[in-house]
């Protein structure tokens, strides 16, 4: 056992880069898949709709930790060698895509029907209608909840610690095992998450207020 020193603090702070990187992977990958989920969910094809609904329900109705375990323990069964890195990345991308898909479905459906009809009347096909009329307007509505959801993504990456991926939480556990000063260690870990998440929460709140004021006018 040793005293919690600057090198321990530095070890935890440095691990934050892996939390940030994993969050970015989850968010970017989740956004790409999530857009497809939202489009499928709002399409006219009943089969696509049903698949997207089931996908969303599956990921929203089960713990993120179980999703992580299923990828981590399931990949070897399929004959794939998998590191905690990839397992965490895949599970977080899938999970994020389901939640973003649901948020964006709501935003797309919030666009008044008349906008769709007007675009159709102008002779725009599905792709052009979505890209030029619906999605730009939906993006404005989607912005506050999407930024708010980024906070959930960052917090979700902490579960990667459980399968042995060394991000901030795992780094904290390692230092705690060496120093046994949990009060300092987990306060530092909490403070790092707070520093990452709070600005996003604050920003999300600000744009939501601004939009509410614009709507009230």
């Amino acid at each position, binding site marked *: 056992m040793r005293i919690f020193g600057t090198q321990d603090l530095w070890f935890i702070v440095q691990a934050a880069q892996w939390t940030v990187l994993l969050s970015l992977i989850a968010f970017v990958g989740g956004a790409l898949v999530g857009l497809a989920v939202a489009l499928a969910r709002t399409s006219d094809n009943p089969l696509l709709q049903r698949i997207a609904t089931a996908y969303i*329900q*599956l990921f*929203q*109705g*089960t*713990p*993120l*930790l*179980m*999703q992580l*375990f*299923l990828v981590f*323990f*399931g990949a*070897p*069964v*399929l*004959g*794939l*060698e*998998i590191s905690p890195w990839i397992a965490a990345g895949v599970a977080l991308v899938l999970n994020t895509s389901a939640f973003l898909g649901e948020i964006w479905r709501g935003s797309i459906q919030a666009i008044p029907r008349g906008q769709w009809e007007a675009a159709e009347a102008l002779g725009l096909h599905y792709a052009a209608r979505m890209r030029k009329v619906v999605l730009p307007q939906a993006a404005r509505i989607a912005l506050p909840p999407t930024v708010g959801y980024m*906070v959930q993504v960052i*917090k*979700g990456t*902490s*579960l990667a*610690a*459980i*399968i*042995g991926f060394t991000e901030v*939480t795992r780094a*904290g*556990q390692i230092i*705690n095992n060496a120093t*046994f*000063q*949990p*009060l300092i*260690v*987990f*306060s530092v*870990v*909490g403070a790092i*998450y*707070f520093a990452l*998440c*709070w600005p996003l*929460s604050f920003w999300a709140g600000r744009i939501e207020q601004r939009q509410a004021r614009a709507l009230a006018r």
Partner: protein
Amino acid sequence: METGFSQTSIVNYTFQFADVLAAWPLLLKGTWITVQLSLLATLLGLAVAIVCAWGKTSGPKPLRFVINAYIELIRNTPFLVQLFFFFFALPAIGLRWSPYTAALTAMVVNLGAYATEIIRAGIESIPKGQIEAGLALNLKAHQIFRLIILKPALRAIFPALTSQFILLMLSSAVVSVISADDLTSVAANLQSQTFRSFEIYIVVTLIYLALALSFSALFRLIQARALSYPDRR
């Protein structure tokens, strides 16, 4: 947490659910602990939230600051870190408690913060004119509270509150890292005995899914039966 798992690739894998399904009494007990933890944490968390919502809307300024700090702190840090804090950090200053109590405490503190905001929104959703209308109709004070404040407020917050309950139940899988005897802890124990990790987690994931779907169906039923008004159409 160490996982007794070796990274050999098995291409022709045969699923064996027998060992997992044979352990159904353990799984049932774990499921019950998970539901019990979530229900208890929600009830206690609601009590915390009602006090905090009152403090935030009509308390003195320093109290409002403390409550805001609590809400922001909880909402911007992961539940896993909060759990470690209660399990490792508080015993270090002399509070000794079991994994179950630590898990329950972390869940209460977590839910309390989210529910405070939900309840505050519910209270603020009741327009003053509605209460005055009740007075004008010569309703008694308890009738005004029950019919004009409580029921519409509950109706307004019920969906948000129940989805928060389900979120809490699902994130409670994390308390298995301190072995709080919940469903995921049972799964982790079974895994170290049978090495059938994939099958175990498939079964346990399905149990969570069934729990989430049945609770949300139950809450929708309550919403429709007990918290709705006669249809105007």
